[in-house]
């Protein structure tokens, strides 16, 4: 704590010197965004009948689930009293965006994602229960809720309900991440956060990051399994990534231009911050490397005919840069919003520790964990195209 005072430049209100929301709170919108984005990609196939992305449909759903399960963990670890967190569900304060988010999250996890995945996989679960023995058999039977009915009629119902859930799921995914944006965008005390655009920007950046993630997971999974990548699918995903990215970039630039043109009381303070402490994460990583460069790479593929190998390389590079860029965006929102004083007269610094409760180490663990969960989910519920004929 002693070193905090030395990290202060100009004047901060005394209580402001310590940053309140750490890297764990950066992870929260990042991970939630990946969930919403992956789900929206999945619904492209299901609702909008974009047949090309079919190979990634189930993979996208499982990815969304794996990340959604991890999403509340960094929040829990950050709380001063994690053991009281459940009060948010028992005695929610209805005017609090944060309290209502708990319900949006639960709705999305339990009603949308789990039910949709279950309906989509029900037939396979039953078949796997029939095929396997011992513990695995019991587990698959439990997963099928001890039903053995895979008649034509029941599958039709599954499909119908599944479609309905997906249709409900799209606004829910929008709600999920738009809401995260609202949690920040509605804080009038903080001019860096307080903008009506915040939920919309969060939503589109969520779609961008989720699509990029599923694209990369699909490429890596195909490589690991030694199966060829469906280039029609990959090209389509990359095209959608480009479109959403352009919208996202336009919105972010609109926000920026608006701030510069209006130049309200907070502008000088924020402008100084962007040109000093936030220069590398904001200008260099988020805007140049994380947005303009991937858009250029993805755009290049649209303009020039390139060989398959080169396209794959470009997609992988663009995808990685996108994930880094969106992480930087979350960082700049959450951390950047706390670096300046609400008096607009000074700045503090954020010191990231390594192996502490809110340090870099737990953050890295929370970023690896969803991939482990995804690995288990993929083993349990293989998302690949049905290879064997139905029994």
């Amino acid at each position, binding site marked *: 704590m002693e070193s905090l005072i030395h990290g202060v430049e100009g004047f901060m209100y005394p209580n402001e010197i310590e940053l309140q929301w750490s890297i764990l709170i950066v992870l929260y919108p990042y991970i939630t965004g990946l969930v919403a984005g992956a789900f929206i990609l999945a619904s492209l196939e299901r609702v909008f009948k974009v047949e090309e992305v079919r190979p990634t449909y189930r993979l996208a759903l499982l990815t969304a689930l794996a990340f959604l399960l991890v999403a509340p963990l960094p929040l829990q670890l950050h709380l001063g009293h994690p053991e009281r967190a459940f009060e948010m569900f028992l005695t929610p304060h209805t005017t609090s965006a944060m309290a209502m988010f708990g319900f949006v999250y639960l709705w999305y996890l339990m009603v949308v994602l789990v039910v949709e995945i279950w309906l989509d996989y029900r037939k396979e679960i039953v078949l796997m229960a029939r095929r396997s023995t011992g513990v695995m058999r019991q587990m698959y039977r439990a997963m099928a809720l001890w039903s053995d009915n895979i008649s034509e009629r029941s599958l039709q119902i599954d499909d119908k309900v599944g479609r309905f859930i997906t249709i409900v799921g799209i606004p829910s995914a929008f709600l999920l991440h738009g809401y995260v944006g609202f949690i920040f965008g509605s*804080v009038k005390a903080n001019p860096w956060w307080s903008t009506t655009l915040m939920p919309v920007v969060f939503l589109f950046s969520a779609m961008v990051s989720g699509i990029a993630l599923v694209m990369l997971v699909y490429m890596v999974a195909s490589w690991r399994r030694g199966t060829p990548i469906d280039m029609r699918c990959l090209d389509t995903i990359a095209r959608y990534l480009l479109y959403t990215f352009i919208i996202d970039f336009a919105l972010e630039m609109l926000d920026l231009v608006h701030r510069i043109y209006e130049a309200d009381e907070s502008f000088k303070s924020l402008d100084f911050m962007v040109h000093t402490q936030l220069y590398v994460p904001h200008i260099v990583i988020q805007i140049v490397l994380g947005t303009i460069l991937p858009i250029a790479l993805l755009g290049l593929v649209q303009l020039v005919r390139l060989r398959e190998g080169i396209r794959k390389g470009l997609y992988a590079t663009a995808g990685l840069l996108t994930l880094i860029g969106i992480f930087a965006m979350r960082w700049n929102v959450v951390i950047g919003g706390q670096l300046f004083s609400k008096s607009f007269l000074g700045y503090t610094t954020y010191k990231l520790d390594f192996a502490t409760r809110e340090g870099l180490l737990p953050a890295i663990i929370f970023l690896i964990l969803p991939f482990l969960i995804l690995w288990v989910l993929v083993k349990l519920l293989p998302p690949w195209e049905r290879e064997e004929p139905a029994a």
Partner: protein
Amino acid sequence: MGIDRREFLKGTGKFILLTSAAALAWDSLIAGRPEAAPNYNLQDHWWGFTIDIEKCIGCGSCVRACKTENDVLLEPYYFRTWVERYHVPKGDIEHPEVDSPNGGYDGFPPRYKPGDGSKNFFVPKLCNHCAHSPCTQVCPVGATFDSPDGVILVDKTYCIGCRYCVQACPYGCRFIDPRTMTVDKCSLCYHRITKGLTTACCETCPTGARMLGDLKNPKDPIHEFLRTHKVQVLKPQMATGAKAYYNGLDGSVR
């Protein structure tokens, strides 16, 4: 010797009911009683605060009294009230120089020379006990709340330590107490004012720059003060219904 189903249910039911009753009783035992204030009626009061900048000498008595009275940590990042020193060179209200060494706890070492053409004054700060408080609005569990007599309070046994309220306060009046990992802020010395006393900071202010006022009491001098002074609240554009009224508030103060 067999127990029939009815008896079993009766017994279990009693057991469950009694256990939960015991748990409740234990909880209230642990929580202790609120201090008795038999003559205090919540509905009869609406607390506000006045600060006369022209009277503040920057002695820091209020900061010290507050920390002592309310057991606030002595480190320079935790303040329920603090004092800022403003130095406005050549009347340039856009670019004031502000400092608040240790929140004003030790007073202010001399820094500016008299007669340099600047404007200098002290601004004591504390929770504004806003009528439309953004901190209360965002609390996810309702641990921070508006009491009916116009004071913003925190239930520390309920706060989950999410820090959303700290972000939402435009005035920087909240902090997390590392001993309890819950939020802390000015309670307007609620334990004192409900017994007819004034706050610790008002009690010790040697110049009477800080005054507690009951806006519902027609005989309270606060009405005369508000009528005869040109008062302003901090950051009026935030529209929080702040109830800390400043006399002599300069345009440079934020």
